């Protein structure tokens, strides 16, 4: 019984983190973008530094009418936001932020998270198809073609760190991690982060939702809370990617002045800042540039890194 209670408690904590951390990233994005682009809009609501902007957004979303297009497939249309969001929550359950601090430690944690994250795209596909809108379908097709190109380097980069640590478990990887891995596994880390960004549709990889070309891709027909759920999924994805990168490639809770879960969050926070920074600084990649980057840069780099990792692991 106590086991059950503890499991329920852990799930609750992960659930609360799942709902609050993406909002934190959203708030950070408002402010960082406002500063970098000298915008005044996000700095206005509520007085000091526009602190109430996010709350205002939430109130606005909850007031909007939930519209379903006439020609849409209503059931699939309604299921899609849930299916886009759920995998990120399930994946977050398995990621530890400190020694023993995880929703549920898994023997093959890395593998589990990668597998579950790959399912989220079905939600986007369902949304794009069920909306009965050509822009939505175009966006969904773009999304999948992008995902197919970037899933491979994403997984290959993760395999490199798994080989280096000799384990598929997050805790084992963090325990095996040493500071010089920062250099040794640097290419894999960069590939992982870039490919992850592409999987999340974050700029400069936001071709599937390119607003100047196809309105908002698969999410064009969504309004109100359903649309907010898709946004939440995007920011949950950022949180997940930053936590994953910091745990796998930056040593997680290892750090000077003692190991602590605070280090995990600090590293993930810096990465989240980089994600926003990239959005502000780079223009959107074209379709051919996207495919070139994946197949001609990221995958060869990831394969070379695998070779290097294999050689070092065997020679040590």
């Amino acid at each position, binding site marked *: 019984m106590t086991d059950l209670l503890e499991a329920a408690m852990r799930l609750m904590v992960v659930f609360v983190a799942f709902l609050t951390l993406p909002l934190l990233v959203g708030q950070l994005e408002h402010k960082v973008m406002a500063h970098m682009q000298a915008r005044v809009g996000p700095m206005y609501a509520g007085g000091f530094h526009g602190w109430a902007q996010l709350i205002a957004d939430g109130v606005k979303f909850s007031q909007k009418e939930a519209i379903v297009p006439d*020609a*849409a*497939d209503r059931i*699939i249309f309604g299921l899609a936001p849930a299916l886009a969001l759920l995998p990120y929550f399930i994946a977050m359950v398995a990621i530890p932020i400190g020694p023993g601090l995880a929703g549920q430690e*898994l*023997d*093959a944690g890395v*593998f*589990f998270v*990668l*597998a*579950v994250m*790959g*399912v989220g*795209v*079905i939600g986007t*596909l*369902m949304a*794009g*198809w*069920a909306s*009965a809108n050509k822009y939505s*379908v175009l966006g*969904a*097709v773009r999304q*999948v*073609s992008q*995902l*197919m190109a970037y*899933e491979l380097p994403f997984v290959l980069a993760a395999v490199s760190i798994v080989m280096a640590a000799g384990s*598929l478990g997050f805790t084992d990887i963090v325990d095996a991690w040493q500071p010089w891995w920062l250099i040794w596994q640097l290419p894999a880390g960069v590939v992982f982060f870039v490919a992850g960004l592409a999987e999340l549709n974050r700029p400069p990889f936001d071709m599937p939702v390119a607003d100047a070309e196809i309105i908002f891709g698969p999410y064009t027909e969504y309004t109100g809370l359903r649309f907010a759920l898709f946004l939440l999924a995007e920011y949950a994805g950022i949180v997940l990617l930053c936590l994953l990168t910091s745990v796998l490639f930056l040593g997680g809770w290892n750090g000077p002045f003692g190991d602590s879960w605070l280090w995990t969050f600090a590293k993930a926070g810096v990465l989240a800042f980089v994600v926003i920074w990239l959005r502000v600084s780079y223009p959107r990649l074209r379709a051919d540039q996207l495919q070139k980057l994946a197949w001609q840069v990221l995958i060869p780099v990831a394969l070379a890194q695998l070779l290097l990792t294999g050689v070092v692991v065997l020679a040590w």
Partner: protein
Amino acid sequence: MSERSLLSPTGVDIAFTLLGLVAVAAALMVVTTKQIVHAALWLVVSLGAVAGCYLVLTAEFVAWMQVLIYLGAVVVLLLFGMMLTRAPIGPSEELTGANRVVSLFAALAITAVLGVLIVDAFATTMIDIDGQKSTASVMGASLFRYWVLPFEALSVLLLSALVGAIALSQSDEEA
């Protein structure tokens, strides 16, 4: 391996049976639904339930593999292919082809062969799964020690499929 009565099912047995029923029911929906995209989405349910079956049998690694390959890649590719070609909303009348009787026969034959094979191999054997987990290392060891020949044969099969796909797309270009 131990003797155990089938008449007193444990929680694991019940969960396994329920997941199996979900898998079979969803598979039936795949072939009977009139909407082609719904068929692909029912396939998600069916394959997911199979992953659940693996999980109940403590084969964690195989279950995640099922999710990664079948849900994350195969179904996504299917949906992608449909959306690139033809994916109308609403029922399509011509989904069931003229070969339905032949395919039914083929499906039944495959089911019979696999069923006989499994019954013949395991029949009344009880495999105790308590305490032993199919971890990644156990999987790796058995795959690369005992089953390395089938594994290699499969990779040759995949390679030939790859070459075939390239050959097909080449001939299209010239035509």
